């Protein structure tokens, strides 16, 4: 007889108990957080109700999933308030939420109890088309309900020296996608331009274009080659628009002023993000060894501040892998200490015009932190509230990274009522 699998979340306070401690926090945003934290499992009934003609199935993504598999399951979910949940399929033994199909609608279940109705992401029309070079357009540009994602290259040069970020599975996942789906490891600007031209034919479907990739450290100065790739790509994309600037977000390495000015002046890019991942220098050095050795925490942070002079307040941000500051053995032992330290650093950035958003840390199976557990729902609620309060305090908007333009940051969902 096999050993009983120990549920991972049943010993915690329940969703309703945690929410009762935060009566001023939106239930749907808390639900989004907890679903991201625990993942989802689609029942057979839910899978049978998926219609590939109208629902978006999983397409190439920069990071892998919790079950480590690439399967034709729904891409993800929409909540009733129009916000997205970016969540991937999760094995049953990890105690995920369950997506079922009951009485003609998809529902979210926790231990058999219906918590809310959800919808599947609608499939964009360009997903059925191919580029003139014969590639499926869904492999070139992937869609969220209102955003286009361009993953220029999923190789990260920090991994070449075994200095990849410890929460990240980007290179392992790239290899898997290339082998199982034939996804190109680097995109050609002409293919991207053609795909985006097709995507934006669909009325009312997209509001933003996000470009991101692994770091490319090569060049005369560090990241010069990465900047060159993005300029080429952004210029090609820009040919699809009648305006010089178009709603867009670049999530990239921390570029110097010269590189940032080139991006701003030579392309139509409208916002710039560079992820510090964890707002603590000691933990940054441990968790992001490549970034720490080649740039350093303080320099990465100051490059963000200098970017505000170029892109403007409200157009520069940094992303956190929220909760990774509690990774063990070197992370904070108490959630209270982790929260205080994170918000103090976020305030330093907010004072200087840089906005901070987080994603919920998912310890992915192909990352160094596989098997660890993310912090509590209570922690993520406090982190979301804390980051949005800082934006309000310093008059920072987060238009380029909100519930619609991104959808992956519980804290910027709160900006909807700010």
């Amino acid at each position, binding site marked *: 007889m096999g050993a009983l699998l120990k549920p991972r979340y049943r010993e915690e306070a329940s969703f309703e108990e945690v929410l009762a401690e935060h009566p001023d926090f*939106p*239930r*749907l*945003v808390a639900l989004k957080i907890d679903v991201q934290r625990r993942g989802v499992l689609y029942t057979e009934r839910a899978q049978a109700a998926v219609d590939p003609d*109208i629902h978006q199935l999983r397409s190439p993504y920069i990071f892998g999933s919790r079950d480590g598999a690439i399967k034709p399951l729904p891409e993800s979910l*929409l909540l*009733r*308030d*129009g916000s997205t949940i970016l969540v991937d399929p999760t094995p049953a033994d990890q105690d995920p939420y369950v997506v079922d199909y009951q009485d003609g609608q998809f529902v979210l279940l926790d231990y058999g109890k219906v918590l809310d109705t959800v*919808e599947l*992401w*609608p499939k964009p029309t360009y997903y059925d088309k191919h580029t003139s070079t014969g590639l499926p357009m869904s492999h070139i540009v992937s869609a969220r*309900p*209102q955003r286009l994602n361009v993953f220029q290259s999923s190789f990260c040069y920090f991994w070449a020296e075994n200095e990849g970020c410890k929460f990240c599975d980007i290179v392992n996942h790239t290899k898997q996608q290339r082998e199982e789906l034939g996804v190109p490891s680097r995109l050609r600007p002409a293919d991207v331009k053609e795909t985006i031209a097709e995507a934006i034919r*669909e*009325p*009312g*479907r997209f509001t933003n274009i996000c470009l991101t990739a692994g770091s490319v450290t090569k060049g005369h100065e560090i990241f010069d080659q990465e900047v060159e790739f993005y300029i080429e790509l952004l210029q090609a994309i820009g040919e699809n628009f009648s305006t010089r600037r178009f709603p867009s977000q670049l999530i990239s390495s921390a570029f110097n002023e010269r590189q940032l000015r080139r991006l701003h002046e030579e392309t139509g890019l409208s916002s710039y993000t560079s992820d510090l991942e964890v707002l603590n220098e000691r933990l940054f050095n441990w968790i992001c060894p490549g970034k720490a050795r080649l740039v350093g925490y303080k320099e990465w942070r100051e490059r963000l501040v200098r970017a505000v002079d170029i892109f403007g307040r409200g157009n520069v941000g940094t992303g956190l892998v929220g909760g990774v500051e509690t990774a063990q053995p070197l992370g904070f032992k108490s959630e209270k200490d982790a929260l205080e330290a994170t918000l103090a650093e976020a305030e330093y950035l907010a004072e200087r015009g840089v906005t901070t958003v987080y994603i919920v840390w998912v310890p992915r199976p192909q990352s160094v932190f596989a098997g660890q557990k993310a912090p509590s729902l209570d922690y993520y609620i406090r982190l979301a509230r804390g980051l949005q309060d800082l934006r309000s305090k310093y008059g920072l908007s987060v238009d380029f990274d909100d519930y*619609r333009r991104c959808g992956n940051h519980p804290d910027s969902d709160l900006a*909807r*009522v700010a």
Partner: protein
Amino acid sequence: MSITLPQDVIDLLNDRDTIKVLATVNDKGEPHAVFKQSLHVGEDGLIHSLELIETSRTAKNLVGSIWFERKLSILLRGADNRAVQIKGRVHQYHVSGALFQHHYLAARERLGDVDLAGVWVIEPEEVVEQGFQSRRSAEEAQHPTFIHLDRIAAH
């Protein structure tokens, strides 16, 4: 608790000549009312409203309605002066998908180069006749002594 709207109220909501006002509150209870001619009854029997201004005060208050189950009020005045109030709350906000796209195209066809942020879906919970004659009759029936005496004076 959601109710099924009577057909005459559906007709009033769907009539383009009806004056339609949407009143919401924020987290401090401050009221905010706007004319909202896009209010209509959708195929699901619920009330739909188009959001053309994504960060309007009304839009923020409607997000608050869906997040915290705050009530809202819709006031209708028909071409025949019939007045009806509907109380309810937001059930859903569509920002993509077939319903959104249908309204996106229709709004641009009708209004020109406008954007559509989303489509609110409102569950009606109560319908109240607000016309003066019906309100007066109800008041007199419930509170027959609420009257100035000169109105019933013998001389």
